[in-house]
């Protein structure tokens, strides 16, 4: 059904249609509206047969989810930013135990300095925790991916993170198609766990494992993600058949067929990138784009194929690996084996800095002329940085950097 609604609310409705049995909630901006929406549905009796639990921390939220999932309940939670870091130990644990929990990440920067706005530093920090990571480009996709996520998680007995750009998507109101219960029921069968805590058939879960078997257990997690490389496109195709629209998959290309320059990015920024690609195409440049939807598992083969005829690669990253540069670029290098091209890493949009069409256009033009540095920070205020560096040079006790820069920007 078509509806004008907030991204978070669409996600909440989608999750509710998946018939979750346990939802644990702890507030953190910008995911809060999602669990609020679900809590409202449970409290009002619209979402039946579901326990909604207000917990005392994100660590507890995911721990409650671990217990609920291990006891055979379809389990959901959501978090962001500091919350994801606070539950980090449980993030690895849920994956190690092979529990099919679905968790939304309302992508947000990590402090300090504290910042509530969007970038991908939070989910990127957990990229190797063993969860499948899907990145939504639009709110429609965000809503749809949750339905696919439960199916994927339960099929593989592996947790799935659905990453949704904070504010840009979570707080945006737009026209969205919310599926019917019948459609979702046709697509998503009831949860049939691979392992379950049940007094009728007692098992021990989470035992101590030494060197004799640990490698094998870890390898199996990798093996399952490799299986997900096949399963994700299948589930996306099946979703298309049931719901009548394309959503999900490993990656999505845009005007990339004959493109000599390819821009790669994750999440909502792909919308802006596509607009700029259109403009540059109009001007005669052979440029195209690719959105990575599944960052874990990483679609190496598909990206290798895509980039094998390209001359240039521009990776737009909403996170910074301090001390080296890009995380997505770094992962892409594995897929570039045997391919020779100019690769540019662009760190952009940290802490909610807008990524504008104008900035991207000028960036891509420089890339097309091969005038970009290997690592570029989009729209960096170099003057503000120089002033702070000068202060640090001038005196030992130069004070807190963030506050100094803010003062400069405000007072000047």
């Amino acid at each position, binding site marked *: 059904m078509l509806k004008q609604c907030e991204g978070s609310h669409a996600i909440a409705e989608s999750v509710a249609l998946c018939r979750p*049995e*346990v939802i*644990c909630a702890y507030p953190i901006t910008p995911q809060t509206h999602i669990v609020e929406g679900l809590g409202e549905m449970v409290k009002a009796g619209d979402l039946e*047969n*579901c*326990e909604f*639990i*207000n*917990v*005392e*921390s994100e*660590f*507890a939220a995911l*721990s*409650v*989810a*671990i*217990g*609920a*999932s*291990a*006891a*055979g*309940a379809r*389990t959901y939670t959501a978090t962001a930013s500091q919350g994801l870091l606070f539950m980090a*130990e*449980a993030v690895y*644990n849920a994956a190690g*135990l092979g529990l099919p929990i679905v968790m939304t990440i309302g992508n947000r920067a990590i402090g300090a300095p504290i910042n509530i706005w969007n970038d991908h530093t939070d989910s990127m920090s957990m990229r190797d925790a063993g969860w499948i990571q899907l990145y939504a480009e639009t709110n429609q996709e965000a809503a749809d991916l949750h339905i696919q996520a439960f199916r994927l998680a339960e099929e593989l007995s592996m947790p799935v993170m659905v990453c949704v750009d904070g504010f840009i998507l979570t707080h945006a109101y737009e026209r969205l198609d919310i599926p019917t219960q019948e459609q979702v029921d046709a697509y998503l069968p009831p949860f049939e766990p691979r392992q379950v*805590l*049940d*007094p009728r*058939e*007692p*098992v*021990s*879960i*989470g*035992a*101590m*494992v*030494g060197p004799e*078997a640990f490698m094998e257990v870890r390898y199996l997690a990798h093996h399952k993600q490799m299986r997900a490389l096949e399963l994700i496109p299948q589930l996306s195709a099946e979703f298309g058949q049931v719901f009548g629209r394309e959503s999900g998959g490993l990656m999505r290309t845009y005007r990339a067929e004959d493109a000599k320059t390819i821009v790669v990015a994750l999440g909502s920024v792909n919308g802006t990138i596509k607009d700029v690609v259109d403009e540059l195409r109009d001007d005669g440049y052979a440029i195209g784009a690719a959105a990575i939807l599944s960052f874990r598992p990483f679609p190496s083969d598909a990206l290798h194929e895509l980039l094998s005829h390209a001359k240039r690669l521009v990776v737009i990253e909403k996170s910074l690996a301090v001390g080296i540069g890009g995380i997505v670029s770094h992962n892409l290098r594995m897929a570039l084996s045997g391919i020779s091209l100019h690769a540019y890493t662009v760190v952009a949009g940290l802490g909610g800095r807008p990524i504008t069409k104008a900035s991207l256009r000028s960036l891509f033009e420089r890339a097309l002329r091969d005038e970009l540095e290997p690592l570029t920070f989009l729209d960096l205020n170099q003057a503000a940085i120089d002033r702070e560096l000068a202060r640090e040079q001038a005196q030992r006790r130069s004070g807190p950097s963030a506050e100094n820069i803010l003062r400069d920007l405000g007072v000047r």
Partner: protein
Amino acid sequence: MEMQQIKFYQTGTFTVGNRLLEADQRSVQANMERTNSLNSGHRACQGCGEALGARYAIDAAMRAANNQVIACNATGCLEVFSTPYPETSWQIPWIHSLFGNAAAVATGVMAAMKVKGRKDVRVIAQGGDGGTTDIGFGCLSGMFERNDDVLYLCYDNEAYMNTGVQRSSATPPAARTATTMALGAEPGNAFGQGKNVPLIAMAHGIPYVATASVAYLRDLEAKVSRAMTVRGARYIHILVPCPLGWGAAPHDTIKLARLAVETGIFPLFEAEHGEVTSSNKIRHRVPVEEYLRPQKRFAHLFGKTPAVDTLARIQDMADRNIRKFRLMDERRHG
């Protein structure tokens, strides 16, 4: 014929002989149908108080719940010695997730059982003192505050034994651990620190809180059975001596667990909804020195010049417990 009094207790130990009781009064462990939830063959040290306490507590819970029990374990000795993969001593559904989240995992299991209409299945969370009073404290308090239908069992051996005897917030004053060395002007753990989690549990107003000791196994069974008749958050704090960490002989585990109670150092009591409802009376009061002396962790108190001031401070603490929890039979001693 003259009436002859039955010797109900074995001489000097106060241990009830099962043979002298009616069949329905005998302990869970005396029953052929006990579940052996924590089965033999695990790798606990000789004389491990935690293994003993866990076996009695879980078997008692199993009997009370008609064998419908799921247990969630914190990281620690109990988890490590019971489940080196691919072996497990647990005959019940059992999960270990992390060090600090046993109470929250139990909440999750409880929620799943509720939503699946399995109200007959009872959920237990368990951990050592580190996993309970320190790293797991946030999740424990959250579970209490929500009054989730979980029985939490803390096996308190008063330090981080699994990692090599480091101080926890349950380590008693003056005790030597690997991080409170018996050195300097005030050797061992500091006075005036640590937390009393049974009292903190009571402050949450939860329906049932109790303390127990592996020297009084019938009492432990009775308290677990009592806890299982209640719905909501319940907490039992069980003193379990650790021969390795305390520097004591394995055959002295029960003796030390008893002396901790008889000195007043570890009061046994029950509380409901935040109020103490009963306490176990001390039948044979002993000075704290008798409890402390056999333990190497307190050896620095008994050197060439005994630490009389420190011993007096510990005796003071014990005396305060005796007054506060009314541990002496007031008709005889008051």
